[in-house]
């Protein structure tokens, strides 16, 4: 029982990351008709916003270690700590939430530049060409990050107030054995809020209504005198911001490295396909579903019966769903079909 509750939590957590990336992928695909293989790289860039913020906040005076004579060895004292004492330490401690302030403008600018500078030239070209160019872009971004930050993962600390684990079991009277890291709970809550925010934005605002109309029938919306392209640029930037924020908040869970984007990209595409191309709800549902299935497949009891199932479960489910429901869980007809 305890194990099951914990694996559901793990699954929700993983699923939240998949859902946030897949949501952006589906948004871009549904509005602009572009298959964006650079979307995983946007997640990775978000994580490196957290790395950059941590670096900026911990800029340090270097006190040389005199015992070492043949290279520069020093102990670092961050300026913030030197200037503001405990306040400075607290700001450094909260570097991950603070980095969201950096992530949003960075991803907004990056999203707009990417769309205007590259993606828009590929609207009318085949999906194969879109995949090639965005995949190329992902590799370029990855190599730039590697050149700047190195190939090793960079550890990011969650704020110390939420660095440990919460005894969830006691809250719900399930016994003390169930405890779960605070930061993962924060991440889950954050994801749900962001997902709800994006849905509310699309469902409840006029802007959102226009975008949804444009997704359904671009031509008619155009004939009504609405410049749908301008709105789609904003949607692209929004997808970039969502992916970036997901990456930033995920940094304390998974030490960011330059390869992070590729690791998530493949799974996110499976999520989109299982959820149904172009379906936002489907992407979110499939994200959580696959996350949970992946967690259960890694349980020792399951692996004893089906060895190696943890590594293929996602693809196995994708195959089964595509056989039973060729358009995915919530896919509509007419998308990527001619």
């Amino acid at each position, binding site marked *: 029982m305890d194990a099951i509750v914990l694996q559901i939590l793990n699954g929700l*957590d993983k699923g939240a990351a998949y859902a946030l990336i897949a949501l952006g992928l589906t948004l871009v695909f549904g509005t602009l008709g572009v298959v964006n293989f650079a979307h995983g790289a946007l997640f990775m860039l978000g994580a490196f916003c957290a790395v950059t913020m941590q670096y900026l906040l911990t800029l340090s005076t270097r006190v040389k270690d005199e015992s070492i004579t043949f290279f520069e060895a020093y102990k670092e004292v961050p300026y913030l700590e030197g200037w503001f004492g405990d306040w400075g330490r607290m700001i450094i401690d909260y570097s991950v939430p603070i980095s969201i302030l950096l992530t949003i403008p960075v991803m907004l600018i990056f999203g707009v530049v990417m769309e205007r500078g590259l993606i828009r030239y590929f609207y009318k070209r085949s999906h194969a060409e879109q995949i090639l160019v965005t995949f190329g872009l992902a590799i370029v971004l990855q190599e730039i990050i590697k050149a700047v930050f*190195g190939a090793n*993962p*960079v550890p990011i600390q969650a704020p110390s107030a939420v*660095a440990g684990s919460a005894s969830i079991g006691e809250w719900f009277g399930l016994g003390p054995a169930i405890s779960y890291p605070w930061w993962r709970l924060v991440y889950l809550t954050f994801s749900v809020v962001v997902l709800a925010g994006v849905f509310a934005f699309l469902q409840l605002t006029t802007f959102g209504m226009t975008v949804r109309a444009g997704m359904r029938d671009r031509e008619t919306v155009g004939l009504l005198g609405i410049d749908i392209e301008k709105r789609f640029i904003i949607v692209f930037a929004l997808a970039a911001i969502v992916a970036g924020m997901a990456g930033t908040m995920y940094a304390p869970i998974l030490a960011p490295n330059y390869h992070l984007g590729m690791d998530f990209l493949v799974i996110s595409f499976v999520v989109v396909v299982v959820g149904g191309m172009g379906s936002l709800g489907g992407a979110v549902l499939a994200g959580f579903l696959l996350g949970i299935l992946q967690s259960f497949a890694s349980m020792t009891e399951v692996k004893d019966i089906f060895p190696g199932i943890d*590594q293929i479960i996602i693809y196995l489910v994708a195959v089964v769903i595509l056989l039973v429901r060729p358009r995915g869980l919530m896919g509509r007809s007419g998308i990527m079909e001619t």
Partner: protein
Amino acid sequence: MSIIDKKSLTRRTLLKGSAAGATLLATPYFFTKGAYAAEYCNMPGGDTVTLGFNVPQTGPYADEGADELRAFQLAVKHLNGEGDGGMLNTFKPSNLKGNGILGKKVAYVTGDTQTKSDAARASAKRMIEKDGALMISGGSSSGVAVAVQSLCQETGVIFMAGLTHSNDTTGKDKRRYGFRHFFNAYMSGQALGPILAQEYGKDRKAYHLTADYTWGWTQEESIKNATENLGWETVAAVRTPLGAGDFSQYLTPVLNSGADVLILNHYGADMVNSLRQAVQFGMREKQVNGKDFQIVVPLYSELMAMGAGEAVKGILGTANWNWQLDNDGTRAFAKSFGEEYGQPPSQAAQTCYAQTLLYANACETAGEFTPPAVIKAMEGFEFDGLGNGQTLYRDADHQCFKPVLVVKGKENPENQFDILEVVEVVPTEKVMYDPSIFGGELGPYEVQGC
């Protein structure tokens, strides 16, 4: 009238005769030196000798590879008599003169293993066939080392393994042409076991998470055997895919398993993630079976420890070498490397530097480059002054035997490179073993060549 009939002495017969004469004169050498020069791969003809350094320049171990390459370049410099000489000055017994190898200047080519066996093999093949590399060294994964080593055996080129820790490299997959200076998983288990029992007691329940490839399997087996001999119980050993990233689904079962020690047979990025996530799951504050829960990392590396940040403090593991050791070789190497690159060498760098010097010295000892002679010069070679103290290159399996370090993540580092502290230097006899326990055959000295 001359003795020779002029008519019969045409130019053709003269040529034939001298050719036959030359063959006859050369015959005795056919079975010794001259023949090897023709048959063995890339025997140096001019005044340079080319070594091939095959390291991960891209992929997850790229930083480790970069450090190995730095060490190789430094070793080449010192062999050619440039710089301050580093461990050339402390290495004994040594026939190295600082004028290259056997008077030929050392040059090198580099390749990228990408930490993939197939890419590593292709790049080693390119260095042997196209660049004329006489020796191949490097690597930062046991999978790569085993693959390249067997290629080197086929082509008759000596392979001086870099960082590889699987028992298989000098165990079931050992080769006559392959040599390893780095220690292995078995030695880690033998060195670490008693310290674990001393620190955490003899009544412990261990849970292993293991990287699912040759190195992970042999490390799991070695640590399991060592700890079980001390009275520990192994609750479970779970294999995790390489590069899993998020290990939460493998970590949560640990909490309910009744285990009170978690042993992470992970390396590189996997290690950084699994260790930090285990800490986030509150494992270091937990109490199980009335004891403090403990995490152990059997193979440590400095680069990895830097990546794990706060999480490594107080965690026990083993290492092949550390730049803060107190001996002449280490001091000379750390100084030389530090002045050259502005940072201390990692254990990967030290093993690669040592391997290059050991190969060069074996050529000098043999007085020739022919691989069988060089191999024989290295087999059973005993030396000191390369940072590890008295060391033996065992002839039976080409494994180096030297003291093993048990290390711990330092609680209060003095500077940014001061990450590990040496808890104990475990003497060689404690980590010695009978080569037959891992099986495998070295194979022949004489091979077909390239």
